[in-house]
């Protein structure tokens, strides 16, 4: 069986969300959110809890109705369709498998509830279920009940169940949120492969930046119901639009600085300001592991090393910079040259990001 829909040659827009707003009582869950996804794109909605990402996903599924805005899928007005006619495959954080049905019955559910005229025959359904079971690598477990499966297995069943209806779009709500780190990483890779094979537009909700950056074609970052930034994983990681995005996408260090005539000055260190930097007082952000070390008499910011701790593959370097403690990171078994506990060094952020201060 093939899960690939008829090949489309152009990079057509599949999903268009325009000005969607949703309010719960006085609490605004979504504020005028607009974004698009191309056909077969893997889009991640990333944000902390309360950012509105799950609400947006439920709007797409039809489980929530927005107060304002428009959702189109394949050019069709999606909001006018009831949930059951949208043909979206939804996967929930806590699996939402039908607990009183076997794995096979769960997967078959979407086929058995079809209208009589559209319902496949018993043997067709059995074949489809068998295909899907092998797709999710659970051939022998069709007769089990959800309670008899591990978390990772349950989520794979949930995916198979969602794929059974040949969905036009796959919606995943923190699908790996309840799983442990090891299983999560395995499933992540597997999900991406499955997406590529199935060729379905996928919207994936997560609060885990690593997961979003690793999996998605594009990442939409939400905060307090607003879309803050939308871009490819590398774009958003390397050019976070706001301090919030910078902070959210990884660990961060910050220092106050000043930009004047193309030069960036932080304390006694001066360097060329990156292109497009704001003028005047700025906040300088950088990643704790994107730092060059130099001898104390070299160029850079003075950092007084206070402690060095090896943690697995990384080394944590605690230091005092401009009167504030800062936690830097180095990789690999050997320390950067000149870094000794109790002694000063100079540090230079490799890729400082500047945001207007205040």
């Amino acid at each position: 069986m093939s899960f690939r829909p008829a090949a489309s040659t152009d990079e057509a827009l599949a999903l268009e969300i325009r000005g969607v707003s949703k309010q719960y009582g006085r609490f605004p869950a979504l504020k005028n959110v607009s974004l698009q996804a191309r056909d077969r794109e893997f889009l991640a909605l990333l944000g902390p809890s309360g950012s509105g990402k799950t609400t947006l996903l439920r709007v797409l599924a039809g489980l929530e109705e927005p107060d304002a805005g428009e959702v189109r899928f394949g050019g069709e007005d999606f909001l006018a369709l009831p949930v059951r006619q949208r043909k979206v495959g939804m996967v929930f954080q806590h699996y939402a498998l039908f607990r009183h049905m076997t794995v096979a019955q769960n997967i078959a559910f979407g086929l058995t509830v079809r209208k009589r005229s559209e319902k496949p025959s018993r043997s067709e359904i059995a074949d489809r279920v068998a295909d899907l079971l092998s797709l999710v690598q659970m051939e022998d477990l069709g007769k089990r009940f959800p309670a008899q499966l591990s978390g990772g297995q349950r989520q794979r069943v949930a995916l198979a169940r969602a794929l059974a209806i040949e969905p036009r779009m796959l919606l995943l709500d923190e699908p790996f949120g309840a799983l442990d780190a090891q299983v999560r990483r395995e499933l992540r890779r597997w999900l991406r492969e499955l997406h590529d094979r199935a060729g379905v537009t996928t919207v994936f909700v997560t609060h885990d930046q690593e997961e979003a950056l690793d999996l998605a074609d594009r990442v939409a970052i939400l905060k307090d119901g607003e879309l803050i930034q939308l871009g490819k994983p590398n774009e958003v990681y390397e050019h976070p639009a706001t301090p919030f995005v910078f902070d959210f996408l990884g660990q961060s260090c910050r220092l106050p600085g000043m930009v004047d005539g193309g030069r960036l000055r932080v304390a006694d260190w001066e360097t060329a300001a990156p292109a497009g930097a704001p003028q005047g007082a700025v906040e300088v952000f950088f990643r704790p592991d994107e730092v060059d070390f130099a001898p104390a008499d070299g160029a850079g910011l003075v950092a007084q090393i206070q402690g060095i701790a090896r943690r697995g593959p990384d080394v944590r370097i605690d230091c005092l910079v401009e009167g504030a403690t800062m936690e830097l990171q180095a990789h690999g078994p050997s320390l950067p040259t000149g870094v000794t506990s109790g002694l000063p060094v100079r540090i230079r952020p490799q890729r400082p990001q500047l945001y207007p201060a205040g």
Partner: protein
Amino acid sequence: MSLVGNTFRIRLPGIAPLMVLVSALAMAVLIVLPLVVVFHDALAKGLDAYLAALREPDAIAAVKLTLLVAAIAVPLNAVFGVAGAWTITKFEFRGKSILLTLIDLPFSISPVVSGLVWVLLFGAQGLFGTWLADHGLKVIFAVPGLVLATILVTFPFVARELIPLMQEQGADEEAAALTLGASGFTMFRRVTLPNIRWALLYGVLLCNARAMGEFGAVSVVSGHIRGLTNTLPLHVEVLYNDYDSVGAFTAASLLAGLGILTLVLKSVLEWRHSGELSASRKH
């Protein structure tokens, strides 16, 4: 389910046996002894007298009436209970806590009041009394009154049983069913109902026991017309006041039997399907 039932127990040597003894004594005095008395007095004049009392026309009428009232009130309350629990647990709306309180109300008001409200509404001097009389409809001192009173008193049983379970289960499975293309009715029939079936049965069982055993509320609306508006519990009282102790205890033995049967079924449910009852019923 495999994940429930991991309880830690405290150990206090010497205390536990004492507690067990106290509970056993209390059980014997408060439950076993009265049960023995019921059956002993019912059979005091021999099995023939017992069977004769059972065959008495008024007794048969009382049993029939009790079954009729329960047969109407229990299914209705099962439907109301499922509907109430469904709305409360699967939807967000204003006034939810008020609805919850209203469902619980019959638990906190005296059954006599539950009967009296119907008299005040539909009695001869009641709000709609004249209208009903003009149209030749009889509610009070008739079967409709008994049914209404019983429904009111037993209203919370099914809903109370379902709400915690449905809250625990959440609405994700229903949402999943909808996204997979199920209609609202299919979702209810194939997902919601199977998930709550044992808790529903449990609630119906308790509801039925109370419906058949209810005294206070039906006593107010019944009028105690022998062979016509006396349910089994009322029949017991009438016979007892007539000093017909064999008759009274014979009727009482039927109710006691119902109680024991309910208890057995309830235990079977708790034992076999604890995983599918609400958390408070799990062992």
